[in-house]
């Protein structure tokens, strides 16, 4: 694909424009001011729900049912969190979710990178067939295989354990991750691994010592996207985890309204929603440059 050269073109154009003598770069025409104003307003709209979840989670029930609306609580009700935490063992749910996310990420990234390496670098009969077979599973709705898998997991005694959520991740890591990592590996010049082969390095050495270190940003993007999907998954936990002490955070949000103590507004569930959102927001700001580059390189946003 022409994506790598695309990025280069983009950078080259930027460099050209930045260096243009007396360029239009800093001139504030009315049109550009209007665009910035529109963008600021748009951004505020997109950020407003974040403000709202923080504000609501710290309000009293009375403040929530006051007109005119209270935009920001007069006293920050931090104890809302302890009230919410008394409803169910959310710290335990948090650890369950973190454990599942960590194992799913480890399994997906390791197995997807192996497969992507083979698809990008090695020659074997049927390579195109397998690549197409993997990509075509993107079309398969999860519900098609769900019922047999549920019954198989039931026979294995895996229901109400984390195994159905974790074990499949070690078998390929999903078509999207494979596709993305393959794109990245195709972008690495072959000189390095050919030199290593002349020195007698085996495929595993090339994979481990040359390819993996080079695609670290791509591995981070795959890890992030897999982790994100697992962190927010409701379908899997809802079906496979039956006893409430085994729930994940996402599942507990869905179940929360049934457990909510009377006399409370939406501030308690907002507390839980905030706990689900916060790690995502923090992780996002650490990784955003790589994430955006990942979209630029693959042309796909998930």
């Amino acid at each position: 694909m022409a994506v790598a050269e695309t990025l280069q073109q983009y950078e080259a154009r930027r460099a050209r424009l930045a260096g243009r003598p007396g360029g239009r770069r800093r001139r504030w025409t009315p049109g550009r001011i209007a665009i910035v104003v529109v963008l600021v307003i748009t951004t505020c709209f997109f950020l407003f729900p974040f403000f709202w979840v923080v504000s609501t989670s710290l309000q009293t029930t009375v403040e929530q049912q006051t007109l005119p609306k209270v935009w920001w609580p007069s006293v920050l009700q931090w104890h809302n969190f302890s009230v919410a935490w008394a409803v169910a063992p959310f710290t335990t749910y948090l650890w369950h979710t973190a454990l599942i996310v960590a194992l799913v990420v480890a399994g997906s990234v390791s197995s997807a990178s192996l497969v992507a390496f083979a698809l990008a670098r090695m020659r074997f009969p049927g390579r195109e067939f397998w690549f197409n077979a993997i990509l075509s599973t993107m079309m398969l709705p999860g519900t098609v295989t769900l019922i047999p898998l549920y019954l198989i997991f039931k026979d294995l005694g895996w229901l109400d354990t984390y195994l159905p959520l974790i074990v499949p991740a070690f078998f390929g890591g999903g078509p999207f991750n494979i596709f993305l990592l393959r794109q990245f590996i195709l972008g690495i010049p072959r000189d390095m691994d050919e030199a290593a082969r002349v020195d007698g390095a085996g495929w595993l050495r090339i994979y481990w010592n040359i390819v993996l270190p080079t695609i670290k940003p791509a591995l981070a993007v795959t890890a992030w996207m897999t982790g994100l999907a697992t962190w927010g998954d409701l379908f899997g936990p809802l079906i496979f985890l039956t006893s409430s002490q085994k729930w994940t955070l996402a599942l507990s949000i869905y179940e929360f309204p049934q457990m909510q103590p009377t006399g409370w507004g939406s501030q308690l569930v907002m507390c839980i929603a905030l706990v689900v959102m916060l790690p995502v927001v923090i992780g996002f700001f650490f990784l955003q440059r790589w994430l955006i580059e990942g979209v630029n390189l693959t042309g796909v946003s998930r």
Partner: protein
Amino acid sequence: MADIPGIAKTGHNPRRREAAAGYGFMLPVILGLLIWTLIPMVISLYYSFTRYNLPKPAKFIGGSNYTTLFSDSTFYNSLKVTVVFAIVSVPLGLAVGLLIAVLLNQRIPGMRIFRTLIYLPAVIPLVASAVVFKDMMSPSNYGLFNYILMKLHLRSTPIEFFTNPSTALWSVIFMALWGSGGSMLVWLAGLQSVPEDLYEASRVDGAGAIRRFFAITLPIISPTILFNAVLGIIGSLQVFIQSLVISGSANGSPLGSLDFIDVFIYRHSFGTLQMGYGAAAAWVLFAIVLVVTLLFFRLSRRWVFYQGGDR
């Protein structure tokens, strides 16, 4: 590279060894395709032809699950809800994404910050964002949206966004727009990938901005957009989380207006334990996904422009 003299080990064909090693690396995914995809698919197809109401064993009944499905008005409702959602929310999300991308494609200071902040909501888990929107769009006078609408005298009575069957689906479609940052990024990457000299040439020829967009930009980035549209439609045919969180249960309430196909399948398979019926509905969904995907790629041959040697 496999036949560099002096490297090939004695007695083995290097090409064959590479093939063996390749299959070694492919082992996880090949096993995975078999265990988690192919075998369950075959079993699921078989179940769809059985009456399988747990805990009773499966009993072959031919195609009657399918005939029942197509005379089941709740299934038609699910199809309708799902298809309306997909054909409205995917183009709408792409349009909003394009609009923002065009704004961001100007050379303005702070473009990166705007881009990052607008993209941020697209990564927020749906369970969390659904909870937040359910509160902001709550049906009472105290709901934020209603408060603002009434304050601005746009409405005299509160709108029951998620609780009225005629507005619930549209409210979910609206809520999905919060994640438009994802398609914005794709458009932006596309817009910035168009070679500048093409624009210069057309500017010399006197083409306006809109003409340039349709004559140059869109054709060049159409493969990317097509791919994203297809993935978006496949994804939106499988809406589940929003419905459960908004309805508070898997019944598609209010009055089935949020009864997406996946919710229907979940309810029949794991609510009433009709595994055969659920499997049949899943296969109908799969058929729809297949048809939509193939149709898209077929149609795309007419208007999607693939740069020479690009794929």
